[in-house]
C-alpha cells in the first residue's frame, strides 16, 4: 500500500517512477490486513498528525472520479465502547486530549450509543464516536492507486525481487539490482513493509523493522448489522504496547461487501503463519461479547498478516542521512493503510526538495542507534 501511494504522489510530482515488487500488487501485508483509516486509536503526537493529514488526503483521493467506489471508501465513523463507568471516564479523558489535537471525538451516552449501534450487547455504559474514522478495501486501494500512477506513466514490475541497492563510488544511490536486471534511478524508496529492514540492509544500513502477527476472522456475508468500526476501550492500550504477549481486543466492523471482520490480534512471534485456534477463540469471544447476535453467525475464514513495526511504534519516513538518495517509507505497523496517503505525499515532497507539510524529525529513518537491537518499551 505504502509503495503504491509513494508511486502515485511521486508520479504526480513529475517523477518518472518504476514500482518493483517481488510478488503481485497487494501481495504483502496489505493483502492480509484490514483497511481502517483511523484517528480514534491514536494518542496526540506525530502519528496522530500523520493520520489526520492522511485522512484528508484519502478523502481527496476518494473524491476523484471513479476512485472512491473502486477502493470501497466509506466514511463510516468509529465507535469506541467502554466496558465500565470507570472505563468511560478514561475514554473521555483520552478523547479530550485528541480533541485538542484536532480530532472530532464525541462522547456519547448509552442511549446515543445504541442509536449508533443497535445490536450492541445490553448494559454498555457509553463510549466515544469518531466521525473521521474511515475505511477502504486495502488491496483494491493499493491496486487502484497503482493503476492511477500507471496512467501518469509510472511502470509496474511485478515478480521481481530487489537483490542489491546500487551505489556510486561516492556512495550515492544509483538504482537497484533485481533478479531480472538492473533499474537505474537517482532515488530509491524503500517501501518494503515488514521486509523493509532487509532492503535497508541491502543498502548497508540498519533499520529495525520487525513482524507483529495479526489474525482477522471473516464471517459469512450479512445485511448491515454493524454500522461503524466498533471496538472495546482496551484496544487503545494494546496499540501503544510493545508487549510480546498476545493481546486480543474485539474490533468488529461490517464491510461494504457484507462479511463482518473481527480483527486485530497482536503477537510478536516472528513470521509464524500457522493458525492458532486460541487466538481465533479469543477474537470470537471478544466479538460475541460486544455483539451477542454474532454467536450464531459463521466464521468463513481467517487470515494472518505481519505488521511491520518499529521499536518506538512510529514508521520510518524520509531521507536516510547515511545513504544519499535512499528514502524509507516503511514500518507503519497496524496503520499502514491509513497512513499511506500521507506517507506518499510527504515522500514526494522531500524527494522534490520541498519542505514537507509535516515535520519528519520524529520519523527519521536513522533515529535508531546503529547498535544491537533495542527492545520495545
Amino acid at each position, binding site marked *: 500500500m505504502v509503495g503504491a501511494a509513494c508511486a502515485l504522489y511521486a508520479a504526480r510530482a513529475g517523477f518518472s517512477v518504476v514500482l518493483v515488487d517481488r510478488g503481485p500488487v497487494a501481495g504483502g501485508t496489505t493483502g492480509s490486513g484490514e483497511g481502517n483509516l483511523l484517528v480514534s486509536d491514536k494518542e496526540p503526537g506525530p502519528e496522530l498528525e500523520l493520520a489526520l493529514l492522511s485522512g484528508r488526503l484519502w478523502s481527496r483521493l476518494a473524491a476523484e472520479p471513479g476512485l472512491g467506489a473502486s477502493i470501497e471508501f466509506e466514511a463510516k465513523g468509529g465507535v469506541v465502547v467502554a466496558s465500565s463507568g470507570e472505563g468511560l471516564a478514561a475514554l473521555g479523558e483520552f478523547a479530550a486530549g485528541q480533541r485538542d489535537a484536532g480530532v472530532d471525538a464525541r462522547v456519547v451516552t448509552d442511549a446515543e450509543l445504541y442509536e449508533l449501534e443497535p445490536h450492541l450487547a445490553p448494559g454498555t455504559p457509553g463510549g466515544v464516536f469518531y466521525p473521521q474514522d474511515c475505511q477502504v478495501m486495502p488491496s483494491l486501494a493499493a491496486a487502484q492507486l497503482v493503476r492511477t500512477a500507471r496512467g501518469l506513466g509510472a511502470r509496474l514490475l511485478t515478480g521481481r525481487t530487489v537483490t542489491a541497492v546500487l551505489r556510486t563510488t561516492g556512495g550515492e544511490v544509483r538504482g537497484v539490482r533485481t533478479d531480472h536486471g538492473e533499474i537505474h534511478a537517482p532515488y530509491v524508496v524503500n517501501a518494503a513493509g515488514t521486509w523493509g529492514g532487509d532492503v535497508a540492509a541491502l543498502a548497508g544500513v540498519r533499520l529495525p523493522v520487525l513482524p507483529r502477527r495479526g489474525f482477522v*476472522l471473516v464471517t459469512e456475508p450479512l445485511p448491515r448489522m454493524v454500522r461503524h468500526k466498533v471496538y472495546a476501550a482496551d484496544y487503545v492500550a494494546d496499540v501503544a504496547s510493545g508487549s510480546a504477549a498476545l493481546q486480543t481486543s474485539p474490533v468488529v466492523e461490517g464491510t461494504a*461487501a457484507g462479511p463482518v471482520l473481527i480483527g486485530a490480534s497482536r503477537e510478536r512471534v516472528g513470521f509464524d503463519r500457522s*493458525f492458532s485456534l486460541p487466538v481465533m477463540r479469543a477474537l*470470537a469471544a471478544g466479538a*460475541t461479547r460486544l455483539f451477542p447476535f454474532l454467536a450464531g453467525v459463521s*466464521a468463513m475464514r481467517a487470515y494472518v498478516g505481519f505488521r511491520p513495526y518499529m521499536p518506538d511504534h512510529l514508521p520510518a519516513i524520509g531521507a536516510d542521512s547515511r545513504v544519499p538518495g535512499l528514502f524509507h517509507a516503511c514500518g507503519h505497523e497496524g496503520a499502514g493503510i491509513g497512513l499511506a496517503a500521507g506517507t506518499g505525499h510527504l515522500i514526494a515532497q522531500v524527494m522534490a526538495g520541498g519542505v514537507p507539510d509535516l515535520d519528519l524529525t520524529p520519523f527519521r529513518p536513522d533515529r535508531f542507534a546503529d547498535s544491537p537491537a533495542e527492545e520495545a518499551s
Partner: protein
Amino acid sequence: MSPAPTLAVVGAGPAGLSAALAAALRGVRVTLLDSAAQAGGQFYRQPAEALGARHPKALHHQWRTWERLRDGLAQQVSAGRVQHMTERHVWFVERVGEVPEGRDPGNPDGRGPGGSDRRHFAVHALPGPEQEDSVAVYADAVVLATGGYEKVLPFPGWTLPGVLTAGGAQAMLKGGLVLPGRTAVVAGAGPLLMPVAVGLAAAGAEVAALVEAAGPSHFAGRSAALAAHPDKLAEGVGYLAQLLRHRVPLAARHTVVEAHGKDSVEAVTIAALDPAGRVRPGTERRIACDTLAVGHGMLPHTDLAEGLGCRVDGVNVAVDAEQRTDVPGVWAAGETIGIGGAALSLAEGHIAGRSAAARLRGAAPDPRTWAAAAKSRTRARKFAAALAAVYVPPAHWAEQLRDDTLVCRCEEVPASAVREAVEELGATDARSVKLLTRAGMGWCQGRMCSAAVAGLAGCEERSARRPFARPVPLGVLARATDEQAPEGGPADDEQNPS
C-alpha cells in the same frame, strides 16, 4: 501397561477405512470421523445395487473389497477398538500440548509423567454447518483421509439449472432422481465420465453424447503405463462395452463451448479441439438435452492439513514413504495427497495405519511388512500419473469464457473482472485475483472457482489456505468445546487464550 495409544482418522472413505482398520488391528484405539451418515467415502458410498448388480464382472473385485472393509469396521467397532462417529464435520485439527523437543510425538517414550502430554491433537467437529455443539476428539496422532472434491471449470451457460457436476449426477442416480426420458450430455475430461454416462444410461436416461477432451493420441505414448493395469483396463473396456450397448455416442477430443437455455439447459454446443487444445472453428454442433453433467477431475481437500501447518506441494499434501506429513504425529492418505482412485487410497491408508500403529508404540515400522501395499501404491501412482497426463482439460479452455461468464458463483464475479485484475491491477496469482475481485471469498471459499481463476490468470493452481474446513459459528468458536476422549479418561483443559 500404559493405556493403548489413540488415533483419530478423519474421513471414512477407502483411505480412512483402511488406515483405521490397519491401526486398530495393531492395538491402537481409533476414532473414525466422517461428515457422511455412512462409511465408504466417494466410492463405496454408491448404492450397493449400482456397484454389485450392474457391472458384475468388472466391479466384482471392488465389491468384495468393500465388503471386507465394511465387515472389518463392524468387527472393530463391536470389539470397541474403533469408534465410528458419523455426521461429524471436522472444521479444525488443533495441536494441543507441547511435544517434547526431539521426540516423536507418536512415541510413548516421549511421554511425560502420567501420560500428561499424550493428547497432542484435538479434532474439532460439528454435527452440521449451523450446529452449536462442537465436540473435540483428543488423540495422540491423526490420519487425514479427507479425499477430494470436484474441480469445476466454467463455460458460458454453466450456471443454468440442469447443468451439474459429474459427482452431482452420481448423487442424482443414487437418489433415483433420473427420470427415464431425460436427455443428458456428459462432458469434460477424466476417467469418471464413463461410469457416470453408463450410470445415467442404465437408469433410463438417454445419453446424447459423452464429450471427452482427451483423444486417442493422448493415450498413445502412455500405453505402457496404462497396460500395466489389466484390471483397470478391463474396467475401462467394460464401461466402453456398456456405452456401446446403450448407444452412447462418444465425442473424443471435443469440448462443450456453451450451454443454451432460458430457464434451464435446453441444448449444448460442442466443438472439436485442435492439437493445441483450442476449439477448431467450424466444428461446432448443437445437441439438444435437458441435463448436462460436467467433470474435470478432482482436487484434494487440504484444509485440515494446512490448518495444522503441513507442507503442501502445489495442490497435494506432502508425505513421505510412510505417509507421514512434515508435522509430527500427522499422517495423510488417499486423495488428500493426490487424486489417484480407490485402489491407491486403499494402499496409502493401509500404510498410514501401520506406520502410525508402530510409531505410536514407539517402534520404527518395518516397511517390509507392508511391501504388498507399497507395491500396489507404486503401481497405482504410475497409473494415476498416466491418467492425469491423458485427461487434461483443453489447454485453452479459458478463451471460451465471455466477459460476462460468471467465474465465481458465490460472489457473482464475471470473467471480465478477473481479466481486469490481471491485465490492469497487477494481480499475478490466484490470491491477488481473489483480493481484487472477491472471487473465492463466498460460501464455498473458492472450492468451486479456484481452478477457473488460476486458469484465467494464467498461473499455477495452488491450494488456497482455508483455516476452517467448514464454516463455524462464532459462538462455537468462542466457547470451550465439549470434549470426548477416545479412552474415556479426563481430557486436557482447553488452552487458555490469554
